[in-house]
């Protein structure tokens, strides 16, 4: 057993107090009144009696309380037994595998350093190779032979994703927790500023006993990150927006004067071999420059790809060229299913007018059922009798293909005598729904004849009238989105189609439908893409990424490599750009203060360890104080209840045992 704060044992001097109390407490006899001393004989208390200890049990309890209190402050602990006595230290060689390690010479130095470490470390120790970028991967260990590590090291190469030192340290902390012996982490990285977590606390790994950092950045390096997008409003001309972000890595040994040096960079926009535009800019580290190239003529061909590149070579060549597809602002196609009922004519006019406002959608009216909807269509509007218990099967089947449908009422009003001339307004609005219904002004909307809609158990009422009749309901489906609008939209049963709120509602519905089914057009490398069922994904080399089994199920896939991907589904083909993280291409290094703060904790732990002349394990003192260290069992968990029990027993015993005269005589 060892003590964390042995100085507190000075409290044991307090043991004299109960001893003195019990030994000399009877020297001054208690004075009591008595009627007369006539028959009393003065007694000289015998010396032996004076010095005798009294109330042994009480004394023992008091001594025990002081002992426990002193030891509680001194924080005793026991070392855990080391299971693997043969291995002194477990070494975790952690290599940064992020995109920035692709910069000139970094990866080679990292591999060289790791290889050297594998050779240098003692045979009695165990070694494990770990690589990290977005996540931490345990690559290999030396359980078979050191050569296994070397082969695994050679097979490694840097990724395109970013790194987060916080995530890395917490994962290493978990790995270190699996070992009973001390764990030393050898971190080999470029010590990139952008990889630091927002909270530096995430860098603390209490399970890690020893710590060493090696920076692969030895020379000053500069990089310019290129990002671009292309958009066409008319299908003939394209507007290309380019942004350049310059950064530099300046290790302490390098010349800091280079940091502010101006460098020239030439931007080229090409389509195949044809140069569309070129411009040369001057930048220095830290600059962010944006350029917009307007009215470039779209090259001929279907879905042409533009290539934007920087001509000058910098430290990281991977972010010097991007491929672009041209985003065209086309209205979203929506199909309106029409039946034979003539009463829907009014509804069709109101819906078409509302949806085609601002060219957001193009409404195509089709007679018949949902089975006749064109295959690329994902949004339909359908009229159904909502007073019936269920929706028509063809609409449900359509929605089940990850599509969206809004069904409005086309029931026949039973009696015109029941029509309320005043009507009712909109009452409850579900403002938490992504439709954003709370932002729509429902003030003028009045409902005169709301149909008795049949609700199901899982229906979510988004909008209802003042008299609590449902107006807009979202019905849960396995896939896709189904909205039910309980209004005939004929302008007679309500004035909703005539209100500005109706246009806002339809646009909100369209945006909600788009968001539920759209595949994003760009992602950051390493992000996970959620895919609907029955789609195929092709990488920039046009190779299929999903096997047949993957194809059939809903899921996602992490896209680590940058470039232009292609998503092909029954509804057509869509481009997906996977971009490099602009933060990761920023080569700025961690500031000295932050590095100091990161390393200081482990240095303190090592100093504390070296000061202790024991073979106990080095630990984080703060964690020891919290009684939460893996290498030590803190004993305060046991001492505290014992102290409480001893003090309680002492109180009870003292109150009963002591001869207290309470009658005042």
């Amino acid at each position, binding site marked *: 057993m060892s003590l964390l704060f042995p100085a507190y044992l000075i409290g044991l001097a307090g043991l004299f107090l109960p001893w003195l109390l019990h030994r000399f407490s*009877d020297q001054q*006899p*208690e*004075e*009591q*009144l*008595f*009627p*007369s*001393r*006539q*028959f*009393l*004989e*003065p*007694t*000289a*208390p015998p010396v032996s*009696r004076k010095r005798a200890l009294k109330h042994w049990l009480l004394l023992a309890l008091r001594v025990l309380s002081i002992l426990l209190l002193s030891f509680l402050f001194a924080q005793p602990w026991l070392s855990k037994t080391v299971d693997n006595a043969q291995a002194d230290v477990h070494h975790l060689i952690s290599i940064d595998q992020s995109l920035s390690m692709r910069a000139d010479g970094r990866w080679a130095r990292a591999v060289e350093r790791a290889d050297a470490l594998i050779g240098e470390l003692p045979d009695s120790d165990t070694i494990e190779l770990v690589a990290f970028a977005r996540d931490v991967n345990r690559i290999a260990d030396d359980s078979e032979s050191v050569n296994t590590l070397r082969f695994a090291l050679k097979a490694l190469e840097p990724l395109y994703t970013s790194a987060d030192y916080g995530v890395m340290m917490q994962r290493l902390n978990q790995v270190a927790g699996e070992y009973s012996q001390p764990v030393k982490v050898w971190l080999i990285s470029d010590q990139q500023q952008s990889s630091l977590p927002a909270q530096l606390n995430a860098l603390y790994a209490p399970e890690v006993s020893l710590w060493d950092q090696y920076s692969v950045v030895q020379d000053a390096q500069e990089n310019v990150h290129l990002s671009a997008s292309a958009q066409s409003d008319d299908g003939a001309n394209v507007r290309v927006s380019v942004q350049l972000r310059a950064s530099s890595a300046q290790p302490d040994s390098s010349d800091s004067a280079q940091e502010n040096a101006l460098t020239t960079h030439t931007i080229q926009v090409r389509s195949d071999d044809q140069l569309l535009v070129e411009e040369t800019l001057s930048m220095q580290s830290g600059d962010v420059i944006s350029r917009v190239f307007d009215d470039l003529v779209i090259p001929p061909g279907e879905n042409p790809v533009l290539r934007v590149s920087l001509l000058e070579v910098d430290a990281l060549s991977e972010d010097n060229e991007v491929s672009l597809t041209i985003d065209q602002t086309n209205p979203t196609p929506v199909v309106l299913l029409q039946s034979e009922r003539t009463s829907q004519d009014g509804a069709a006019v109101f819906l078409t007018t509302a949806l085609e406002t601002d060219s957001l959608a193009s409404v195509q009216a089709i007679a018949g059922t949902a089975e006749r909807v064109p295959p690329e269509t994902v949004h339909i509007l359908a009229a159904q009798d909502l007073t019936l218990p269920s929706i028509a099967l063809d609409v449900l089947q359509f929605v089940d293909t990850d599509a969206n449908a809004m069904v409005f009422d086309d029931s026949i009003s039973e009696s015109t005598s029941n029509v309320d001339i005043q009507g009712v307004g909109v009452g409850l609005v579900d403002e938490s729904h992504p439709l954003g219904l709370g932002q729509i002004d429902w003030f003028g909307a009045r409902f005169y004849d709301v149909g008795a809609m049949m609700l199901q158990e899982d229906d979510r009422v988004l909008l209802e009238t003042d008299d609590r009749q449902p107006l807009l309901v979202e019905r849960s489906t396995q896939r896709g989105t189904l909205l039910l609008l309980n209004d005939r939209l004929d302008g007679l049963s309500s004035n909703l189609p005539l209100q500005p709120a109706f246009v806002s509602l339809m646009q909100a519905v369209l945006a909600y439908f788009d968001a539920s089914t759209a595949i994003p057009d760009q992602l950051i490398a390493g992000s996970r893409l959620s895919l609907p069922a029955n789609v195929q994904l092709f990488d920039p080399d046009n190779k299929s990424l999903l096997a047949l089994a993957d194809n059939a199920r809903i899921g996602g896939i992490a896209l680590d490599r940058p470039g232009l991907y292609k998503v092909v589904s029954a509804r057509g083909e869509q481009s997906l750009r996977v971009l490099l993280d602009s933060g990761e291409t920023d080569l700025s290094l961690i500031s000295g203060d932050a590095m100091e703060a990161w390393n200081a904790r482990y240095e303190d732990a090592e100093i504390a360890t070296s000061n202790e002349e024991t073979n106990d394990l080095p630990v984080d003192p703060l964690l020891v104080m919290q009684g939460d260290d893996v290498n030590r069992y803190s004993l305060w968990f046991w001492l505290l209840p014992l102290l409480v029990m001893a003090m309680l027993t002492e109180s009870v015993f003292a109150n009963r045992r002591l*001869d207290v005269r309470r*009658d005042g*005589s």
Partner: protein
Amino acid sequence: MSTPISNRLLKPDVLARLGSLELIARTVVDGVTTGLHRSPHFGFSQEFAEYRAYNEGDDLRYVDWNVYARTDRTYIKRFQGETNTAVTLLLDASASMGFGTPISKLDQALYLCASLAYMARKQHDALGLGIFDEQVRNFLAPSSRPDSMVRAMALLERTEAGSGTDILNALESLRASMTRRGLVIVVSDAYANADDLMSALQPLAHGGQDVAFFHVLDKEEIEPSLSRISALKDLETEESVIVDPAFLQNGYRAKFQAHCESVKNACQRIGADYSQVLTSDPLDSALQSYLRFRERRGR
């Protein structure tokens, strides 16, 4: 089935809550006498005692005219209550009387005196009261006036434990005032030498007084329960004596017991009646002892 008298009487600590001495006295005396009315041996005022032939000078109010109508002779009807005895209560109010639990010896003595005074007035006795410690603090000469009990009660109400005891000096001072023969009832804890006490009481007895001595004691002074060495402070002299509990357990108890015996013997030698009254006990035995004493003396 009759209830034992002791059960009908309230304990001293309960009596203490009654507040008024007169009320306490009524409660105690009524409690004792309720069970005694049927007894032919005890009588109180207005209770028939005997017939006596009328002599000149007798009060005509006591002639039994019914007997005269039947027998044509005049008889005087005598009652027990017409003993016309002077009862003088002498109360020791020294500092040592302030000791005791649940009530002090002085409180118990006050209740006893009040009860005796009430009882005396019920028998139309002349009532007197003397209160003393080192000297006589108050003295009411025996009087048959109706307000004698009220005055005695008022005096008793004001009585508090004083300083030391000098029972010899006090009784000597009182002896000159007590010319009328009757009953002298001394209530004290008797912290005095037994021989001195006897020499103090002897002149009273020889002067024709019937003396009753009520020795008021507390259980704690008879059998102290101290378990550790303590400094015991004399209430009268305020001197402290360090005493070993072993002595209190043995030596002291024997000495105190011997003292009580010597006081009792001293009383018996002069023909005085001796009764011990504990602060923790009801007053019934003390009052019964008083009644027996009066019966014996035929007063």
